[in-house]
Each structure stands twice: as C-alpha cells, then as structure tokens.
C-alpha cells in the first residue's frame, strides 16, 4: 500500500479540472492506497460550509482525509469552524511531514 498526498491549489469555480484530484483520490483509495487531499491557496474555497462541492463531499463519504491549509483559510476569511463536514484545517507543515515520511506527493 502506497501513501499519496494530493495537493489541490485550484478552485472549481475557476478551473474545470479540479476534480482530477478527487477522481484520482477515489481510484487510489479503491485500489487500497492511503490518500490525503491537501487543499491550499484557492483550493480551500469549496470547503466553506454550504458551498457547492460535490467532489469533496464524495471524498469525505469515502473516508478520505481532506485537509485545508490554515493560512489559506485565514487569507480568504474562512473561519475554521465553518468548514464542510469532513474537512480539517491543518498547517502547511503537514506537506513537509508527509514528504519527509516518503509520501508520494502530486501538486495540482
């Protein structure tokens, strides 16, 4: 089983290929790999409670870890207690932790 960190920096309101990460996360999970999706920059925009983000909801239901960069949330005025279910705020340090731990990281 491999560990993957999928870093999504784009938001679905500006880019129509954002769900690439969600699709990849689901496929990797289905084949038994460990996957974390880390949202950064405008990638955190769909984490707002009430935002239309079907892809993220599916990941959450599938039990895939979804983290949102705390700094990116603060920059955009998104309170950590107003995130959709299944999304946890996290420091950017997580990316370095996972890289140092040998996780396969993909930036999108």
């Amino acid at each position, binding site marked *: 089983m491999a560990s993957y960190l999928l870093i999504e*920096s*784009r938001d679905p309101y500006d880019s129509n290929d954002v769900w690439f990460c969600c699709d990849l996360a689901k496929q990797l999970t289905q084949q038994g790999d460990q996957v974390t999706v880390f949202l950064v920059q405008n990638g955190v925009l769909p984490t707002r409670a009430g935002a239309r983000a079907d892809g993220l909801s599916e990941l959450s239901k599938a039990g895939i870890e979804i983290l949102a960069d705390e700094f990116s949330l603060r920059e955009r005025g998104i309170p950590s207690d107003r995130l959709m279910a299944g999304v946890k705020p996290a420091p*950017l*340090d997580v*990316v*370095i932790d996972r*890289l*140092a731990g040998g996780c396969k*990281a993909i*930036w999108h």
Partner: protein
Amino acid sequence: MADKKTLTFALMDPPYENARSTTALRLIHIAAKRGYDINVFAYEGSVYLAFAKQKPHPNAMHGRNIEEENHVLTKDLVSSLMEETKRNGSKFDWVNCGLCVDERGATEAVEGVRRGSPGDFLKMAEASDNTLVIGTRG
C-alpha cells in the same frame, strides 16, 4: 541529526504573479526550520525568484516611501533561506536552469545560486528522500 532528510523542490513560476511562488517559499522555509537539506531546481520563470537586481519601490498611490512600503523581495527571501540552512548546518543547493536564465536575461542571481540544467534536477531527485514538483498552471 538522526532524522535529517533531503527534500527537493522544482519550481516553475515567476515571482510576484501568483500564490504558487509564495506557497513554494513557505514550504522551503518549513523544511529549512527543520534542518533538512534542501535542493531547489528553478525552471522557466522561477529563475527570477533569486534575480539579484530586484529592487524595492515606493507606492505613490498610497503615499508611501520605500521604507514605509517595505516591499518584500523574493531574492531576499532566497538569501535568508540560505542563511537559515547555514545556521542549522544544513545544505541548500539552488540551481537555476541555465537556458531559462539566458532566455530571460536573468543572469545576475544572489550569492549561493548556481547555474545548471534539468540533468541537475534528476541528480537532486535521485539523491533526495522526496521531491515535490510545483508545476505552473497549464
């Protein structure tokens, strides 16, 4: 350091244009604070991150002089990252893609930056515990 790691980052974006450069420098800073050895391969527009002729400027629109504007320059951030790794006894190898430099006339880089080729990136990645490629937006 028993858990000392070597991480390689490949960058592509120029400074002052998008959040990817900022996030990349934040990531490198975290790795530097941990005392990791760091390799950076700057490709395409990212060779300007360490361009030595960057200058701060006043902001006439807001009536601020250079000191008040306190404009952050990426060349200074690169230098401070190098100093931090030196203090930690770590290695910091920043390679600017030579062809990318020539195309852009970005030949003057801050001290510590060297010229190289994508072949250097391969060597860096092979010698690292892990590599993150922060590609430009396609």
